[in-house]
Structures are given as C-alpha cells and as structure tokens.
C-alpha cells in the first residue's frame, strides 16, 4: 500500500529501502543475544558463589535484555542496513552542515528497522560539534497528529516559536501556518538553523485533507530558504505471509521474517529465566515457539458448549449442501432438529429460545457474522448470516474438543443429506 502520490512541486526524493531481512542477519542477531548468557556464566564462576550477587547479576541481565527486546534501545550493531545508513547520514550531514535542503522517504515492512535507522543517524549527527548547537529537530507521527491542525500546533510547539506559552499554542490554523512559514522563510542558507522534520507513519499524513502540511514542507525544502530536511518513514505490507535452537529459529524464520517477532520469541524464552533456572535452554525456546504458533480461532472453538458445537456442525452441513450461501437461524435450527430427532442420543432436544441464545453467543464471539446490518424491523430468526470458519478449521477443532459426544462427532463427518 503505497502512500498517495504527493502532488506538490517537483520533488527530488531519495528512497531508502532496508533490505528484506536475510537469514544470516536473523541468526546472528538471535545468537548474539543468546550468547550474552555465556558472559553471565563466566562472570558468575569468577565470583565466589554468593546468592545475592548472582540474583543481582541476573536482574541486570534481565534488565538489559528487556530493554533491548521491548524498548528497542539503541545498541551499536546495524545488521544488513549499512548501505542505507551511509546514504542517510550523508544526506543529513549535508543539510546540517552545508545547509542543503533534502527529502528522504524510508520504506520497509513493519519491523525492518526504519525507526532504528533514523534514530541511529540522528544520534551520530548530534555527536558532531557544530551540529548539536544549531540543528533543530521536529518529530511527527501520523498516529498522533491526525490532521493538519494538530500537526501544525505540534511543529510550532516543538520549534518553540513565539506564539507558544508553556504548552499552549495560540492562534487559528491560518495564523499558525503563516507564522511558521514566515519563520522558516526568513532564513537563508548561511545564517539560519537547519531543521530536520521526521515524519513517522508518513502514509497517514498523505491522507490529510488537501495534504496542506506535506505540500508546504516540500515546498520549503525546494525553495532557497531555511535549510530543511524532511525524512518520511512508512511501512510497506510484507507479502511473505505463509504460515532446536537453530531449527526453531529456522522454523520461525520461515513463518515470519520479522525481527520483532524474533524478539517476542526470545522474550518468551527469557521469561523462564529465574534464579532457580538461570540459563536459557533449548526446551525454553521450544516452549516459547509453541506459545507463538497457537491458532486462536481453534482455541475459541475449544471453549464452546456442546449445543454451540452442534450449531456449528449444522452450519457446516448447510454450507456443504448449498455451497456457501448465507443461512439464517431458522435453517440452522431445522438442521439441528433433524439431527436430534434421528440420530442423537446424548443431546437433549432443547427449546428454540435456548438454541437462539446459543446462536447469539456465537454471534457475539464473531464466529458468525450478519450479511447486512440488523434493522429494527427484521426478525432475528430470519436474518442472513455467514460462518467465519472453514471446514478444515472446524474438523481440526473437533479433534481437540474435550469430551465430544460420539454421535456429535459422527454427525460432523457425515451429513444427513439422505432425506
């Protein structure tokens, strides 16, 4: 899903794409983290066996690793994006030091390292002496600034212009916009402070009305005024969704080439580390993998009552006979009645309102969905619905269903289409 075309003045934009995560990066990143534990082992051998120090050590390790997995704090290694990094830092330096205006769009799937890249670059930039005093940064996020009004106020606040008192920004949208443009236009290459705009979730900004903000930002970056760098970050949908320490990582890599999901897997394994169980073992990683790959709909079906399972089987049969045409409660009840009257020994013939309550519970769990919105006048029994589970899911769930009565199970496998 590409961001809408930006119809502004001719924009010279660089586009950086962090490469697809390759297997090597994945493994070296994962193993690097796991090998952290070996250091703990070494240092704890050197110390006299002292329980307090040991648990303190563990606590430290947990803290550091949690910061890395959960809080994405910066560490020095950049895997697989060195080329892009060099390009980016070059660009930013040109704006910050030589006053040249630039714009960049960083595109990559979720979790491919875009935010990490820009944060790293900014950190390195700020270490340069002449830059840290001059350059201004404005951080915007498409999730927070959902329209241009809010975005404008945020920019004004972050740049701390004169119409800001404490946190409050005074003035209307038009006033703020003209004030900001004035402030930025007054400058020139040599004497004014360069400003770096970082726009996270860039595609959301492209959806604002008239794209006023983007238009103006890029306009300024083109004309000979205050040097401005505009860096946009946007995700691109990943198409590769198919569904022992190396084996688990390999399996995981086959499922999702996303570093974040790796962090989640490792974090789950990390949770098992306590003072009584100080080292992460292969078994921990296996169990963590199990937790990650549960099928959630199967879990929900596991917890349904027998009556609700019968209704799902009735719907499955209706789907099989009538080829996925939508059904209503009356039809499902009819199928259920046929089963109860002819084959069932363990399922009591429940009254219609009781069956209706079970049906509505399935609707509440979003396992079935009405075809159109419920109107006030329509009777509930005749409203057309669709089942959101397919045949294989139902059969798999039935295998695992606890204490399933045999006649129900048999009914699932063979429909009663002999009338």
């Amino acid at each position, binding site marked *: *899903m590409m961001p809408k075309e930006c119809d502004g003045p001719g924009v010279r934009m660089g586009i950086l794409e962090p490469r697809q995560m390759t297997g090597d990066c994945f493994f070296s990143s994962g193993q690097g983290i796991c090998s952290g534990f070996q250091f703990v082992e070494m240092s704890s051998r050197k110390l006299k066996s002292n329980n307090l120090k040991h648990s303190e050590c563990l*606590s430290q390790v*947990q*803290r550091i690793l*949690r*910061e890395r997995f*959960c*809080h*994405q704090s910066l560490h020095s290694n950049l895997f697989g994006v060195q080329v892009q990094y060099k390009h980016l830092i070059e660009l930013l330096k040109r704006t910050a030091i030589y006053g040249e205006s630039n714009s960049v769009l960083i595109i990559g*799937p*979720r979790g491919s390292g875009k*935010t990490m890249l820009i944060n790293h670059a900014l950190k390195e930039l700020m270490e340069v002496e002449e830059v840290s005093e001059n350059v201004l940064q404005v951080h915007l996020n*498409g*999730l*927070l600034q*959902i329209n241009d009004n*809010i975005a404008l106020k*945020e920019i004004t606040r972050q740049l701390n212009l004169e119409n800001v008192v404490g*946190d409050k920004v005074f003035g209307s949208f038009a006033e703020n916009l003209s004030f900001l443009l004035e402030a930025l236009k007054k400058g020139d290459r040599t004497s004014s402070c360069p400003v770096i705009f970082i726009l996270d979730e860039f*595609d*959301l900004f492209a959806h604002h009305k008239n794209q006023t903000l983007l238009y103006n930002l890029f306009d300024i970056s083109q004309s000979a005024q205050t040097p401005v760098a505009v860096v946009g970050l946007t*995700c691109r*949908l*990943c198409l590769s969704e198919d569904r022992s320490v190396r084996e688990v990582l390999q399996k995981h890599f086959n499922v999702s080439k996303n570093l*974040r*999901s790796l962090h*989640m897997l490792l*974090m*789950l394994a990390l*949770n098992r580390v*306590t003072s009584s169980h100080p080292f992460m073992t292969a078994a921990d990683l296996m169990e963590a993998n199990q937790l990650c790959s*549960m099928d*959630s*709909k199967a*879990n*929900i079906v*596991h*917890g*349904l*009552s*027998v*009556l609700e399972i019968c209704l799902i089987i009735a719907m499955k049969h209706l789907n099989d006979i009538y080829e996925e045409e939508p059904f*209503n409660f*009356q*039809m499902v009840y009819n199928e259920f009645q046929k089963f109860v009257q002819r084959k069932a020994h363990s399922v*009591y013939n*429940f*009254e219609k309102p*009781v069956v209706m*309550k*079970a049906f509505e519970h399935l609707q*509440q*769990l*979003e396992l079935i969905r009405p075809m159109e919105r419920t109107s006030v*006048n329509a*009777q509930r*029994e*005749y409203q057309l619905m669709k089942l959101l589970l397919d045949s294989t899911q139902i059969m798999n769930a039935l295998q695992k269903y606890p*204490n399933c009565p045999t006649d129900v199970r048999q009914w699932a496998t063979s429909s009663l289409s002999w*009338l």
Partner: protein
Amino acid sequence: MAHLENLVLCRESQVSTLQSLFGERHHFSFPSIFIYGHTASGKTYVTQTLLKTLELPHVFVNCVECFTLRLLLEQILNKLNHLSSSEDACPTHITCETFNDFVRLFKQVTKAESLKDQTVYIVLDKAEYLRDMEANLLPGFLRLQELTDRNVTVILLSEIVWEKFRPNTGCFEPFVLYFPDYSIGNLQKILSHDHPPEYSADFYAAYINILLGVFYTVCRDLKELRHLAVLNFPKYCEPVVKGEASERDTRKLWRNVEPHLKKAMQTVYLREISSSQWEKIQKDDTDPGQLKGLSAYTHVELPYYSKFILIAAYLASYNPARTDKRFFLKHHGKIKKTNFLKKHEKTSNHLLGPKPFPLDRLLAILYSIVDSRVAATANIFSQCLRCWVSDLQRPHGAPCSAECFLSCRRTFLPTAFLELPLITSLVTLQLLTLVGHDDQLDGPKYKCTVSLDFIRAIARTVNFDIIKYLYDFL
C-alpha cells in the same frame, strides 16, 4: 505466592506467565499484551488481582463505558494522577481531547516521583470496542511505550481473537496470551468453592454435579452457572430443611431438583423472568408451570376481528400468491397437483422468512376466511375494478366479493375503513411491519412478523385450523 493461589483458582499457569512477563518493578516489559479467552474465563479477575496483590501502579478502564475518545483518555490520565499524588492533595482534573495531547500529558504525569522508575500498566477491558473508535487509537496504544518513551505496558482484554483487531496496514504486534476455557473439573472446583457454611462441602458438591449435568451441554459460562447455582440452591435444600430427606439421600434430592432446573433453563436462564420473580416462586412453592415469561402468548389480548386480520396476514406472508386460488376460493376447480407441489426443502417459506404482501391481497384473504363468521357489513365497502368497469349496471360502490378479486386478480380498490385502523394498531404492536416507503404508488406493503407457534395459539382461540391453509404443510 500462596496468598494468590487462594484467590485465583485453576489459573496457576496464566498467573505465573503474567508474573514472569511483568518481571521486576523497574524492568521493561512488552509494550502491549493482548489477552483473549471466552467470557468468564478469568481474564479481568486474574489481571486485576495480580496487579493489586503485587501493588504495581496500574489504571483499569472498561472500554464499554468510553463511547467517546475524551472519556477514555481523560479517565486514564486522571486515574494516573490520583495514583501519583499524595493522599491529602486533590489533583486538578485533566482535560484531553486528542491522542496527541494524551501522549504529551502522559509524559508529564509519569514524571512524578512515585511513578518514575516503575512500569505503569494500563488495562483496557472489552478492548473490541476500540476497533470502532478513531482509527489511530488502537495502533497508538499498542506502541504507547515507544511514542511516550516511558516504561508503560498496555494490556488489552477481549473475547475476540487478535486476527480481527489487526488494522489493514499492520501495526505493532502485541504479545498474545490465551486464557483457556475451564474444563468441567475446573468448573466443579470453582463452583464448589463458594458453598454456604451451613452445609458440608460434599453436599454442595453433589448439588453442583447435578447442576452441571443439566446445564453443561448448553452453557459453560462461569458467571451464568454461578448465578443459577445460587438461585436454585434453596430448592435443593428444601427436602432437607423440611425433614423429608437427609443430606446423603442424593436420589431423592435429585428427583426433587431436576425438573426445577429444567424449568429454570426455559425461564430464568433466558431472562424471561427476573431472578427475584424466580425466588418468589420458590418461596411460595407455586408450580413453575404457571410462569408467564416475557414472550408468553397470553400477554397479547387482541380483539376478535384483529385476530383474523393477523391470521390472514400470516397466510399472505407464508403462502405464495399463486396458491391463493386453491386455498381461498370456494370453487377453484381442478388444479394440477404436480405443478402445485413443486418445492425443495430449502425454499420452504418457513425457513426463508415472511414475504411482503400488498394490502388488497390481505383483505381478499381476510374476507375469504372471515366470510360466514363476521357480519357481512364488514365487506360492504370493497370494490373490484373489473366488475365496476364491465358491469356498468352495477352501481358505483356496490359490494363485490373477494372471490372476484382472487379469481381475476385485477386491481382491487378497497376502501376498507373498518380494517385499516386495526391494521395500523397491529403495526404499532409490531406484529405486522410496514415494508418500504409510505408513499409508494401501488399502496402499502406489509409483512407478518409473528412465529408459527404464536399464530397457532391465536388461531386456536378462534377455532381456526390454520395448518390446513398453509402451503408448507400440505
């Protein structure tokens, strides 16, 4: 934690998973955790109990209450403010209108001394309602740790699976935790836990066994089962209290309570009657067969003629128009049975629902079935256009029979001012509904929205055998 185990039964594994996820107070945890499972599987209870027992700073908000964005955001900020301020100081109410302001104010509030170095937990219950609010809210909360650069973890609780939450363009994936449903053994254990002190645990456990035997195949919701257990226990104890049986006489006790529980399934379980009505019935020892639920037929007392209008409407809704001749004309001649009986089971009208019919068809059927039962004056003001046009000797406005309409099916211009207000009142009672717009050129269309059982009961009161006239029961 022994104390925790007593409070939370049958959830040891989930409690330990959550505890290990939280880690120590100052540790970072997952930015967002998504807990899903069936209703009454303990998600809210376990999360709240754990956070309270470990005394971690947390805010609990139920998204059902927050139908606007402001309500949600302000609740979170103000509750946090209360947490961080001392007991005497009354903190000022914070207002917040957008998510951008929320992030900014959140950063300020969490700078307070008491919240600075620990993980703050925001728990959002019934999180499925977040999907219907502004589009940036759910992805924003999932990344709150990154957006605010603070040690905060957002916990989402829901019945609905995570796949239905994920936005189209993706988002930060939370850690998904599943709370499995309780097995029958677990339910037995939890329900037996709150036995009243006057009776022994075994006695109560036997009662729970019987209760589960009746209700387990229908409902596994712990809250419903607990409610039913509390309501019906006095009835179970009745023989013991009266001295007719001892506590160990399980057979007798079972025979006493089982029909009562079956009746409960049809009334209190469906909320047809309220729990206080149920308790009253138990105390007064009246026969539960006399219960009048909310949908009881006897509540609707219609006038005699209106009942016929309703019956005619039901026939018009569920019989195809081409079959009217056969049912309602006195001399319909021979109708080929083979053409007539062409039907598949699916197209049985009782499975598809009522069809709309125009007013004139209703009146025609009505006059045909009413015919000899109501005074002929009811028919007087109807007129068949064909008869009026072709038989000019007939004075304008002279009565013409419904038979004429049914056989020739030409335009029928009823001026049925007797029936129209009755029809309107049936629409008000929602037994009929008006379909389409009021100003349709070819007159109003109606639909009959009562069930077969209801109309049979009505027909019985006027001695009309409706089954004989229904196409689906030929």
